[in-house]
């Protein structure tokens, strides 16, 4: 899965968009990993964040934290979204100390993550980059809309929904924050960053 890879935006904007994820390896360490993921979920909760979820159960904008916490399975996929580098650093230090043995993947500006890893004493193992969008790119919506919709890498957030909510904000029917939270709702994995969405929406109004 690469659902956190293709988040679009400038370096400056993406510097405040981090997704911390974890999952077990089906052929290696899946057995009993649900409990470890539950503990990881509890550790990450302590750090200021803007979204969370498990692809198997739902996100902050669909379920209570406790509902998600109680349903972790060995094949769950955990995610927390942060918009503050200091919070990510503190969270990763806690994960390193907890030594749960599950793979941890951080999505964000790669240079920033490498710096963080160095400061914490971690050595990045594997890195993935996006090589852009190819093919019938004329079918894509305008860039600010893409910056919002690509925050759900499973494309659960429709460009039409973005446009619909922009119209509602312009008419005074919703605030930017309300519109951003409504955009976060369809992203079941909890990787959508509503704070970033609020900022991008303000450019569209």
């Amino acid at each position: 899965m690469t659902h956190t890879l293709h988040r679009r935006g400038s370096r400056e904007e993406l510097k405040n968009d981090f997704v911390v994820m974890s999952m077990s390896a089906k052929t290696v360490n899946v057995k009993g990993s649900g409990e470890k993921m539950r503990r990881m979920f509890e550790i990450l909760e302590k750090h200021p964040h803007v979204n969370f979820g498990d692809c198997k159960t739902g996100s902050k904008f669909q379920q209570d934290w406790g509902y998600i916490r109680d349903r972790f399975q060995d094949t769950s996929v955990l995610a927390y979204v942060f918009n503050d580098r200091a919070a990510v650093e503190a969270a990763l230090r806690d994960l390193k100390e907890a030594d749960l043995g599950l793979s941890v993947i951080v999505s964000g500006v790669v240079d920033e993550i490498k710096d963080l890893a160095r400061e914490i004493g971690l050595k990045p193992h594997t890195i993935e980059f996006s090589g852009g969008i190819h093919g019938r790119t004329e079918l894509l919506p305008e860039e600010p809309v893409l910056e919002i919709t690509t925050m759900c890498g499973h494309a659960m957030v429709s460009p039409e929904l973005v446009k619909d909510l922009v119209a509602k904000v312009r008419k005074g029917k919703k605030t930017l924050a309300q519109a951003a939270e409504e955009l976060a709702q369809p992203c079941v994995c909890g990787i959508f960053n509503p704070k970033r969405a609020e900022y991008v929406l303000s450019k569209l109004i």
Partner: protein
Amino acid sequence: MIIDQEKCIGCGKCRPYCTAGAIVNHPKDKGTGRKAFSEVIRDECVECQVCLRAEVCPTQAIVEEELSYPRILRRAFSDPIYTHEGTDIPGRGTEEMKTNDVTGRFKEGMIGVGLEFGRPGICLRLKETEKALGKLLPLGVQVEPHNPLTQLIADFKTGRLKEEVREEKVLSAIVEMIVPQAKVQEVLAAVKEVAAEVETVFSLDMISKVEADGALPCIREMEKAGLKRSVNGKVNLGLGKPFAG
């Protein structure tokens, strides 16, 4: 998905949520007096269930139909909560680099290349992936066997999919490959040809294990191919155990 016409009042609240442009609103027909209504164009629907989960319909007119093969593939490839039978994980890819610290799937000297067809948010008919598979499989690339798309290939020489799945529309499908570094430029040249032929879009992924000196071969290969690399990416921090090295 189906909109029950007995219950639908044509308010149109569901339409913006549709990820595939499959919901059409019809205004009231003043000539005939037919009421306003919305409908799901069945062949355009990818069964992602976003419209249902949004819970915006005031009359609960949106219902899911019981799906069988091959239409169930639409949901399997489009609804991230739905677990693929073949992979046992949600989503339409595999663990990929996320667990590479314990699986050792992407080793030194090998580059992971992925083509995420339909992403972001354009959708595709599964047969579009044949345009990539048909060019890449003959190059001898190793496609990920646990990827749900790989499991639909009928002919590994031509990349032709099983006949009954080809016209199914989905939100995305991923061609996942592992390529020896020496072959990457040849593969990326073929990817450029694919880009000129497809009727949809695809997002390109490049993966490499960090070398002992911190170098990333995928960066070198992307630069050689003239590909613009994202500033953001995914970093596996090497915390998994047992560590594969």
